[in-house]
């Protein structure tokens, strides 16, 4: 069936059929990584025993059930959602800025979201108790969403003139933004008590270790908003790749698409940062690899980035769990070890391509 629809009407050089095959492969990859991540960790649980028990209808050993249902399953779901959200946020931001270097982490959007989250953690207690109770676990994600949104808008206003983004200005604005954010964060950390301080430090390194169902449920609406909203932008982002004026000529309401893009980036990054802290580079590594393999058309790129982002984060999380077991290395460190050199490699390859 799939092969038949692909063979008709597709012109040579259009990599959409290839991208569709990649989607299938990435789905299989995500499935395998997900299953593996349920069984990898400090407590050894044999997959065979668990699967055997489920198939035989026997009760699973209590300790194994707790580890799988209350620790690894929420962590698996959170890792997949965070990875997918960060990767999709990267694609949308790069499309909006018309530049493959626009990664939420590199240009300060994650930092802005982080500031929102830190403020909520430290000052959340000062809210009237009724408001605090009403927001509950949602307070931190919502604050991170606001912080991320403000950062994207600021960054866009500073670095884009007449629809042209200056890469240098964008990266410099990101530095300024990060500096301001870390100054204010410093103040917040100064105000924090000991317990909050421990939370902040661990959270800042980026980790999925605190995953619980309740945290996940609080952040999930924003992530789902981002993941379901992004595909609506696919055609607009394709046309925007030819410039703002050309996109308008092709029937796109530019102002509306920009607003939607900002909301999607802020929602995805805000929610991801709120639950997992500073996990960087997913938003640049994943879309970049996929563009190399299957091209920059946004419809397949958004879908495949979500799948690959989820898989990569789950893989990194497994590494973080076993590499210094029984302790854990924060996943943010693993991603920085992979992503830092990758970013440098992209910069080296792009030398001489300024602005493209």
């Amino acid at each position, binding site marked *: 069936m799939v092969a038949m629809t692909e063979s*008709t*009407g*597709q*012109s*040579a*050089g*259009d*990599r959409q059929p290839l991208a569709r095959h990649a989607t299938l492969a990435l789905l299989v990859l995500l499935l395998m990584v997900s299953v593996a991540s349920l069984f990898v960790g400090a407590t050894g649980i044999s997959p065979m025993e668990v699967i055997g028990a489920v198939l035989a209808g026997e009760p699973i050993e209590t300790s194994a059930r707790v580890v799988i249902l209350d620790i690894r399953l929420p962590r698996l779901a959170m890792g997949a959602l965070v990875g997918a959200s960060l990767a999709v946020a990267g694609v949308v931001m790069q499309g909006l800025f*018309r*530049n*493959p270097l626009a990664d939420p982490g590199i240009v300060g959007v994650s930092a802005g979201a982080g500031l929102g989250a830190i403020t909520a953690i430290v000052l959340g207690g000062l809210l009237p108790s009724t408001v605090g109770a009403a927001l509950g676990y949602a307070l931190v994600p919502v604050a991170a969403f606001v912080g991320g949104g403000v950062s994207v808008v600021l960054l866009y206003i500073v670095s884009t003139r007449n629809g042209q983004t200056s890469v240098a200005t964008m990266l410099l604005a990101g530095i300024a933004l990060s500096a301001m954010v870390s100054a204010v964060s410093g103040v917040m950390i100064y105000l924090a008590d000991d317990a909050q301080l421990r939370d902040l430090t661990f959270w800042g390194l980026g980790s999925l270790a605190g995953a619980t169902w309740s945290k996940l449920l609080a952040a999930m609406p924003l992530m789902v908003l981002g993941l379901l909203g992004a595909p609506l932008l696919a*055609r607009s982002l*394709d*046309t*925007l*790749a*030819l*410039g703002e*004026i*050309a996109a*308008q*000529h*092709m*029937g*796109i*309401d*530019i102002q509306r698409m920009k607003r939607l893009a900002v909301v999607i980036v802020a929602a995805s990054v805000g929610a991801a940062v709120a639950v997992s802290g500073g996990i960087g580079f997913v938003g640049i590594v994943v879309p970049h690899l996929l*563009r190399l393999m299957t*091209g*920059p*058309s946004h419809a397949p790129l958004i879908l495949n980035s979500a799948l690959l982002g989820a898989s990569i984060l789950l893989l990194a999380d497994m590494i973080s769990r076993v590499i210094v077991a029984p302790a854990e290395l924060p996943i943010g460190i693993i991603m920085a070890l992979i992503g830092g050199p990758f970013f440098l490699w992209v910069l080296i390859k792009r030398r001489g391509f300024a602005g*493209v």
Partner: protein
Amino acid sequence: MLSATNLRVTIDGTTILHGVDFIAEPGEVTAIVGPNGSGKSTLLSALTGTQTFDGEAQMGALDLATAKPWELAARRAVLAQFTSVAFPFTVSEVVRIGGGEPDLTTAALARVGLGTYGTRPYHALSGGEQQRVQLARVLTQVWRPMDAGVARWLILDEPVSSLDIAHQLDVMEIARDFARAGGGVVAVMHDLNLTAMFADSVALMSKGQVVRQGAVHDVLTDETLSGAYGCRVQVNMAPRGGTFVLPQASQA
């Protein structure tokens, strides 16, 4: 019919268009000519809905002041002087962004003489080739010049400025064929000789106004051109009966 009446545009306090009257008919190629800075591109932006203006402008039944981007996109396609492409698309992928059916991509590329270029990376092409790929993309947006009895429009901003002479003729023939099939073509032109060969109507602009619009032999005259361009220009007739302009007169 595409028409503008008393069109005025002011950008950052500078008035670019001082009450322009302009008209283009379906089935014709209408050229806009004039010196640099005379307001040709601004007029084109107003006519394509990307520049706000005072006055009136209509594309068929659409009021250009209030039409939505998607309503305009269904009626007309626009080729810019230069289109920058962000991301490493192939030629086929760039054409598909135009939004036509997938099988139009191949046909449109063949139409601009790049039928075998589909798999190439867009950024590896020369400037002239890139411009023809963009024309193919634009053509897919208004592939049928008539849609349910209503003309569609092909709007071209200096479509041949980066092309060699053979491809200049090819592109102008594509424009003429589009008009012959019932669509309307409006093109900003710098080359007065190509204008004389292909235009059914010429609008000559100078200092933010259309100083004269009409048939080639009425508009491209010694006196109007010399006045508009501010240099001596002499209009002649080619051996086989067409108007041509040589710049040598300015040296005489």
